[in-house]
């Protein structure tokens, strides 16, 4: 697959901390990419470097096969920052037009695209309203439109669903999928793991400015599975003792077992089959990203990081 974005050994040090400390990864064209990490992990700094707001201290950013040029690649990127807002007193239509023109679109071009998106997301009646008249969810929707308006190749969304109700969240989610299908690449930064599991193909987890996990959602889950299985039985046998597995939990007729090293899942099934017990269901328990996230981040001093001094 072609890469839309490649980061090589990116570094950005502040006086008091290493915000981004040697991070490399690449993103495939047309994928939905999740950038995860606890608060203060360095996500925002990383995104600001990708969008050309900050320059890295060292390292290389390649966008679409070429070295990233912050001045001229603005049209290729759409960025919705976590800290986002709009001019409160400005009319919505004018505001969208202004921001699209700042991206570099011509007035007529911008107008055409705004009309298309406003119609698509049923926002046409908003044109002459002011932002201060909108609810938080509505202004989020407007933010989204402004971000994707110029049809960027790379869309970066930092916590895009905060403040959205389920209906509008689904609407945006569908749009994100639609954009990906049309060849856009989406970087999705959040700490809402269930959304990541639902939307993303590929994830990277960073903590303390360093990358600690990189892979597809499935791969990551396989990597962190603990060989646990859930079995639903018709009846519970008297003794459950086996060399091949251990009983972890029992809830009525549902058992959770952990397979010992060297054994296979079939060994578990065989054990119950030999006792002539009907097996109603049998499936593997994969860890949720949430569990993996907590497992990896917990215990590190990530929460106190902001107050540390690092002698770089």
């Amino acid at each position, binding site marked *: 697959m072609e890469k839309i974005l490649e980061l090589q050994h990116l570094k950005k040090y502040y006086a008091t901390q290493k915000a981004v400390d040697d991070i490399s990864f690449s993103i495939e064209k047309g994928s939905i990419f999740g950038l995860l990490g606890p608060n203060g992990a360095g996500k925002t700094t990383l995104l600001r470097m990708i969008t050309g707001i900050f320059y890295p201290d060292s390292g290389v950013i390649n966008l679409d096969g070429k070295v990233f040029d912050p001045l001229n690649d603005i049209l290729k990127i759409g960025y919705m920052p976590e*800290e986002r807002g*709009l001019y409160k007193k400005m009319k919505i239509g004018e505001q969208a037009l202004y921001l699209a023109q700042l991206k570099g679109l011509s007035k007529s071009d911008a107008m055409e695209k705004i009309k298309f998106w406003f119609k698509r997301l049923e926002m046409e009646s908003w044109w002459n309203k002011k932002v201060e008249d909108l609810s938080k969810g509505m202004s989020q929707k407007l933010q989204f439109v402004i971000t994707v308006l110029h049809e960027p190749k790379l869309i970066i969304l930092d916590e895009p669903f905060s403040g959205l109700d389920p209906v509008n969240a689904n609407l945006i989610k569908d749009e994100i999928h639609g954009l990906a299908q049309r060849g856009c690449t989406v970087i999705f930064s959040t700490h809402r793991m269930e959304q990541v599991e639902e939307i993303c193909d590929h994830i990277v987890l960073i903590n303390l400015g360093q990358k600690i996990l990189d892979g597809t959602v499935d791969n990551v889950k396989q990597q962190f599975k603990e060989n646990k299985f859930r079995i639903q039985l018709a009846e519970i046998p008297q003794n459950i003792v086996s060399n091949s597995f251990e009983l972890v939990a029992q809830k009525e007729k549902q058992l959770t077992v952990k397979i010992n090293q060297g054994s296979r899942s079939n060994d578990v099934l065989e054990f119950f089959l030999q006792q002539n017990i009907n097996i109603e269901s049998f499936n593997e328990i994969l860890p949720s990203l949430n569990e993996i996230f907590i497992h990896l981040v917990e215990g590190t001093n990530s929460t106190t990081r902001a107050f540390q001094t690092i002698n770089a």
Partner: protein
Amino acid sequence: MNKILLIAKREFLSRVQKKTFLLTTIGLPLIIFVFYGMIIYFSVKTTDNYKIAVADNANIFNGKLFNKGSEIVFEFVHTPLTELQKDLATNKYDAYLFVPATYVIEGKDSLQFRSSKAMGIMTRDKIQSRINKALEEKRLMGLNISKSQLDSLQEEKETINFTSANGKTENETKVGVSYAVGMISGFMIYIILFIYGTMVMRGVMEEKVNRIAEVIISSVKPFQLMMGKITGIGTVGLVQFIIWMVLVFGIQFGIAMLFPDLAGQMQGQPIQPAGMQAAEAMKNSGALTGLMEGLNTINFPLIIGCFIFYFIGGYLLYSSLFAAVGSAVNEDPQDAQSLLLPITMPIIFGMVIMMKAVNDPNSSLAIFGSLFPLTSPIVMMARVAHGVPEGVTYIQLALSMVFLILGFLGTTWVAAKIYRIGILMYRKKATWKEMLKWTFRNN
């Protein structure tokens, strides 16, 4: 460049389209003018048929005082002083002039004039000038000088000219007018720096607090955003200034139409009989005509040209610093106060030097203040008002302008660095120490 224009356009339109803009631009000066207009009107206006009893016991006026076509009527009476006081009380006369029988015209005695109510300055001036004129003629007659001789004498006024080293004429009123012009223009620059500087700071704070800064900065460079804002607000200021100028001249013209009396004095030439009289009167009292003469000696194209240059230069120099402060503070506007101090100090300092410079435009403090770019926009106006090259040499003026341009490039460079980082720093207010550190950071 294109994007700076786009941003400037928005900044300009969003301010100009507000109702408050119209109110402050047109309403405020109008109110001030109406206020001053009323003051002038009431001080100029004489009561209809101001009747003055003249008890000329020494017969110094020969029963003759200039009376024609005027609201002020002198009436010669032969009543004693006590009668006159009663007449005043019963409003038979508005005032009386009592000349005692012992009055000697060549002496130092004074005449007694009493009115029933307070008189306007203009009325008093008119009365005084007419009496003086009559007395003067009388005195001169006593020296055997005829009226025609007297007229030719009066043509040749000002036999002494005060001349400065470079050969230009100076007189008292001109220095006074230079003082006033210098003071007013210096003060205006001072006000402009504060008003529009603060406007820039508020604009930057608004963008930061609204969190739109980062959205915009992903499309344009922070420097473009800052310059766009400064340019836009500067244009608002310039437009406001031009409207004010137009209003000033327009209203002056309007006043000329409404109060021909005043117009006659203001333009130093009569428009119609009533104006002629008034002008005549003023010529003798001297104050306003002298002022007009003084104003005529002021090189207004130079002053206005310099004013616009120092207005723009000073604004550009300071507004970027105000922008930097705006970027460094967060929600709490109180934070801005402490950070503003280092910026407002030189402005106030400039104002102090200006006060001295209007009195003594060539003192070393004035020269320093007019060259140093942080104070020059204010101080230089005071010196320019005294004229070039009397108040300031061409070389100093040129140097000051070059320094101002360099200074503005310098502050913009520093401010851009602070702004770039400050605008994306949420939650925390930056200190001057931190801001200084940002200045020296490379990227």
